[in-house]
């Protein structure tokens, strides 16, 4: 190269980055529209409902990535070969056209992009948004576990039956069938509260991240266990109420709680309980922290 000859300038990096974002948006826009329609209008199926928490999880993940974009820029460029592999696999999944694989291509391609540009440090920076995407992507897990939760259905029917007996109702429990005044309710696999369990854990994860609590291992474990407990108890109470409504002929209340707005309010109330648990429970930190920058951080008494 002779002196004086200009070196070809790379295209403006910002333009290229936005181009990539636009292409990904073009690829997944029809899928997102389909999913959101399915979640809002319940048009796809009951197993799709299990992932409706993605409605808040995906925007939050996008927000996190956006907030960390300067840290991303500062990372050294590192084209990890695993990134190329994941991109190839994700592309193959996308081209199959089956709902399961196309859905799964999303977290695979996003992870591949992180590795392809910034290597393992890139993955470490964005592990949480990627996890949110992975746990919010519709997949067949709810279907695959249905044959294995009979014990949970029986447990819920038994406890709900016991509670109703304490309140003086004429109750009989037979396996997963709970009868009040001779009118039976079946605690089906999809009534066993697995959906609310998934959603509770997901929301708890988001809450812990948002408040910076994930580093606190004890509190994190406590909250996850607490979310499981609250979700199971809330589901038992819900099945108790449903049996009572059905047994006493209050069919509108039954429908409202089962598949209507009553049920939605009930779920929101349950999630509020988790937030309450978070704020009322101890912080589980016994000693002062030294945070990442090496500064002494005073122990918080209140969260």
């Amino acid at each position, binding site marked *: 190269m002779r002196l004086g000859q200009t070196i070809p300038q790379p295209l403006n990096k910002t333009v290229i980055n936005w181009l990539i974002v636009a*292409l990904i948006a073009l690829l997944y826009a029809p899928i997102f529209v389909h999913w959101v329609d399915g979640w809002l209008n319940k048009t796809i199926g009951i197993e799709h409902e299990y992932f409706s928490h993605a409605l808040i999880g995906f925007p939050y993940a996008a927000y996190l990535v956006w907030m960390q974009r300067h840290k991303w820029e500062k990372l050294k460029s590192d084209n990890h070969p695993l990134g190329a592999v994941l991109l190839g696999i994700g592309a193959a999944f996308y081209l199959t056209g089956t*709902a399961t694989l196309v*859905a799964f291509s999303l977290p695979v391609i996003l992870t591949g992009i992180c590795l392809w540009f910034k290597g393992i440090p890139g993955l470490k920076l964005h592990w949480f948004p990627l996890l949110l995407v992975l746990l919010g992507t519709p997949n067949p897990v709810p*279907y695959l576990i249905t*044959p294995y939760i*009979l014990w949970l259905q029986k447990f819920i029917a038994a406890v709900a039956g016991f509670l109703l007996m304490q309140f003086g109702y004429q109750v009989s429990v037979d396996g997963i069938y709970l009868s009040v005044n001779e009118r039976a309710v079946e605690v089906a696999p999809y009534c066993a509260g697995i959906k609310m369990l998934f959603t509770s854990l997901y929301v708890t994860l988001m809450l812990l991240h948002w408040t910076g609590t994930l580093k606190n291992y004890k509190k994190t474990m406590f909250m996850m266990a607490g979310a499981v407990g609250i979700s199971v108890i809330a589901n038992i109470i819900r099945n108790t109420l449903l049996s009572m409504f059905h047994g006493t002929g209050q069919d509108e209340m039954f429908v409202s709680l089962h598949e209507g707005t009553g049920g939605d309010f009930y779920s929101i109330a349950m999630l509020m309980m988790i937030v309450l648990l978070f704020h009322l429970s101890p912080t589980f930190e016994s000693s002062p922290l030294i945070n990442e920058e090496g500064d002494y951080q005073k122990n918080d008494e209140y969260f």
Partner: protein
Amino acid sequence: MMNIFKASISKKSVNFAHFCLILLLFILIIIGVVPGYFSGEWAWQDLPRISNISYLIKLKKTELAIPGWTILQQQEVIISNNQWSLQIMSQDSSTPVTLLMMPQDFYKKKPEVEWTNLQLLGNWQTSEHKTIKFASENPQEKSDHVKAHFFRSSMPPIWQSLRVGTRGRQENNQTFAVVQWYAWPGGGSFVPSDWFWRDQFAQLNQDRLPWVAVSLQIPISPLSDLKEMEEEATKLAKLVQTSLEEQVFAPMSSNN
């Protein structure tokens, strides 16, 4: 001079990574998405339909001929909001055997809790669980086989369980050897996820894997050894699978 050279290389490698990704995304868009934007439809929007599902629906109300067996009775029954075919048949006037079948009658329907539904209906007390393997009489490929669940069950005969008010009455209980599996063209398994992965695989070719839940209930003496029954049960199960393949699955795939 060297600094400029190094700078241009590093800028090139940054561009190379971006270039590769953009190229990949373009290819994906052109092959995977653009056709969809034009037609307004995408492959993943809905499950492919089952061609000739009418054969499966018809199975609920018609007899399934089993060579060497006389069908005494066949009717459609309702178990847990699902329609099953209940067929009672016997061989040379021996004790009648019950054949319960639930075909996939809707393209979105998947094997799920059929075994639980049967078990709860009759309050089955089961024991001696085993897995048996067999293939139909004319396997298409060497690997075609059925993985069925074989066990002993103390329960009332199915027609008694279907009558309201007889649940839990142990005096109605008889002993049966039960064979259960989800049958599909070329094979079967009693585990729903086995069907699921094969169906996913078929979907790669825009195809589906139709299925029929089969429960075979053979009366046995309460004192008999289940192992003695295994050969006989397997033989009958093999006949049922073959009949399903010849009379239901084969016509479904040939009439395209």
